[in-house]
């Protein structure tokens, strides 16, 4: 009886302080497991185009390209929307040129970015706004892909398609479900302070939560298995 009372007392008191985080853990955890991670990644927001490179359309040979761009590296021939293009890096910039006549297509203008985004986007809503991001990207965009065009679409979950300004490639796709997931993840790992990599807060909360749960387990044991007098029949014969 003493153990039962002590456990109840500690369980109640600890949960007074930890209860909110328990609720946060279970809400965020449930969100993260219920929504399919591929959906969260926005895989359904985009079309994985398989347009093949038509070799006959390459009328601007590498021989000409290397005269124009002697420092070209990582040269690729790919399809950009409907044109065959060369993509390559030059010093620390990336360049796209038309494979027909070598016309430079990069950096993309806002209209070209919208056109590219529409090409990648699987929905049929219209682009609502477009914005070039060159620094301080939002959380949902890696700084490695900058500069990039942010193209917002009118669609379920406010989808956004990010197109690289220099390559015209799809660099990211996000919708509200990803944004909520990101928030949920932060809440789940109690990532409230950017500067604290060891996350002391999470450590102490988890430690006390284990303690509180163990007291809860004792309670369950008493209340469920040693219930009502806990007068248990051991065996009987007639």
């Amino acid at each position, binding site marked *: 009886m003493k153990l039962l*009372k002590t456990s109840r007392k500690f369980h*109640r008191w600890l949960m*007074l302080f930890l*209860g*909110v985080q*328990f*609720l946060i*853990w*279970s809400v965020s*955890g*449930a969100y*993260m*497991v*219920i*929504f399919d*991670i591929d959906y969260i990644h926005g*895989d359904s927001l*985009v079309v*994985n*185009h*398989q*347009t093949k*490179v038509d*070799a006959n359309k*390459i009328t601007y*040979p*590498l021989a000409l390209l*290397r005269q124009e761009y002697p420092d*070209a*590296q*990582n*040269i*690729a*021939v*790919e*399809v950009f929307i409907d044109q065959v293009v060369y993509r390559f890096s030059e010093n620390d910039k990336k360049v796209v040129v038309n494979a027909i006549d070598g016309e430079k297509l990069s950096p993309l203008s806002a209209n070209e970015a919208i056109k590219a985004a529409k090409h990648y986007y699987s929905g049929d809503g219209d682009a609502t706004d477009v914005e070039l991001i060159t620094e301080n990207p939002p959380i949902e965009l890696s700084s490695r892909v900058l500069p990039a065009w942010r193209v917002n679409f009118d669609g379920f979950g406010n989808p956004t398609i990010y197109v690289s300004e220099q390559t015209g490639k799809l660099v990211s796709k996000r919708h509200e479900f990803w944004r909520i997931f990101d928030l949920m993840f932060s809440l789940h790992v109690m990532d409230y302070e950017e500067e604290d990599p060891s996350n002391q807060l999470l*450590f102490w909360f*988890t*430690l006390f*939560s*284990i303690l509180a*749960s*163990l007291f809860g387990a004792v309670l*369950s044991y*008493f*209340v*469920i298995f*040693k*219930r*009502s*007098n*806990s*007068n*248990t*029949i*051991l*065996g*009987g*014969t*007639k």
Partner: protein
Amino acid sequence: MLLLKKLHKWLSLLVGLQLLLWLGTGLYFNLMDHEKASGNQYRQRPAEAQLDINKLVEPKLILSKAKQVVSIKQISLLAQPYYLLTHTKGLYSHFKNEYSLVDAYTAEPAIIDEAMARKLAQSSYKGQGRVISATELSPPYEDIPREQNEVWQVNYADEVNTSVYVDAGSGRIVKHSNDDKRFVDIFFMLHFMDYGTEGSFNNAQIIVFAIFTLFFSLTGFIWTIELAFNGQYKVTFSNNKRKLALFDKEQKSLGEFDVTTKTNLLDGLVEHDIALPSNCGGGGTCGQCRVRLDGKVKVTSADHAHFTDEQLQQGFRLACQHDAMEAEKLALIDTLVTNKAKKYLLELTHSEFVSPFIKELRFKPVGDENIKFKAGAHMRFHIPPAKGISIPSRLPDAFKRYWHDIECLEYEHQACSRNYSLANGNGQIEDGANELVFTVKIQNAPNKTVLPGVGSSYICNLEVGETIEAVGPIESFFAKELSNKPMMFIGAGSGMAPLKSLIEEQLNLLHKGRKVNRDIYFFYGARTEEDLLYKEDFFNLSRKKANFHYYPILSKPPEGWSGAKGYIQDILASNIDNICQLKGIEFYLCGPAQMMSETINLLKTKNVDASNIAFDEFN
């Protein structure tokens, strides 16, 4: 609210273990070395090719000879330039992709064979280990569960058993894994309940558990709020004491008690030897620790669950749900305390069957104290937790046949308390009695699912010389002030004890030469002649004392029985008018509930004033 608490309780059973796993593995993730957990202990960046752009073969030339591509791209493998041809492009590199490779200078096709895979692995490895094997594998892979392409697994003999995975199509280094990472993966498997090793946390089992856990947290959260709302979280730094006025069932004052404001009333009363019944120990779930406070005292959900609105209005509450701050007076529902009540240690001196199911038990207070009590009083016994057996060990041969049909059960019971009435009538003579007599009926279980009476079995199986704690005497049933009014005692079964006590007391008073001469009628019902307790004693008394009239009534009389036959309340109904003038008679009742309620109803129809009926409830 009750449903919510029940839900919380049962969900704890369902998700409790997984919850602990989540917390435990979560703590591990918080503490683990993230560098080690990455598996990249010996990973390095492979050297890049020093590209001579003039030597590159025209992509057009390669495409004209190759299978159609989505992309052709110059890459670097083993510091050599290659063209990577992507024939089918997955959304991510770990999705299904179809590649081929061509030497970027010679246009010679290249494939990732074992030798190439080993070299590629080595180019990304900075450890001292030797390659011990290189195997081409197909998905799924334990180390890289999300990978859908064929890979080479290159294993190293180093202290962490590094494995390097090389994409068999493109030569890309997919991943490094080692024992440290594999160890962490076990924790991820537990945290994600990923027992199918799909490398995902979207499996059915975790979704089900997550939903249950959500309800579990939610119910707990609401419960906590409710507790806070009801003022169950209180921090008192000083051990404040205050007075609590205590009353018994009839609102008779029992004086003031000191209680600490910190503890709840259930615990507070225990400090004064008032042990209210409680199975849950203060959780508000068993509903046994009933008391009566002021009707204005706030009502908790536990109170709601166990009382009707009318009772709540009258002030009925559970003692464990309230503390001394909330109440100034408290009335016990279950009468058990008088100022005389004290805790005694009693030693069994005599234990004997007086009928097939009833035993006479005699106790002496340890320390040879005398105990003063009014006849009709009872003691509250503290039954400790013990193992019990449904059939007493030492049955007299004569009674064995009555126990044939009783199932012999062994069981374990928790501590409880039980009231037993005193059967001796000398509690007020001189310094009181130094021997306490009880007649206790061993309560048998009505069916298999219910245990026999744990209290009666325990106390009746005590051995002579053993001791037991009891609080008392508790005087809730006693004779009115001495007068000449006739008294009628009506009882049955083990209701004998308080009646016998009262009759003896009355006859002893007469014996002491007081100028009182009152008629005493005793109606006692039983099944068979063997169930007739103290038959000889009462027959003898009735012969000796002209004013004592004994009427045994049997429901199953033997042949030749000259007394009344039937149920006591029926016999009374048809004969009571012939026995005596009912006006002014005092009635004292003790017996089974049905007998009592029917008798009380009968007396009411005979216009007996309720104030003249005293009864002792027992169960």
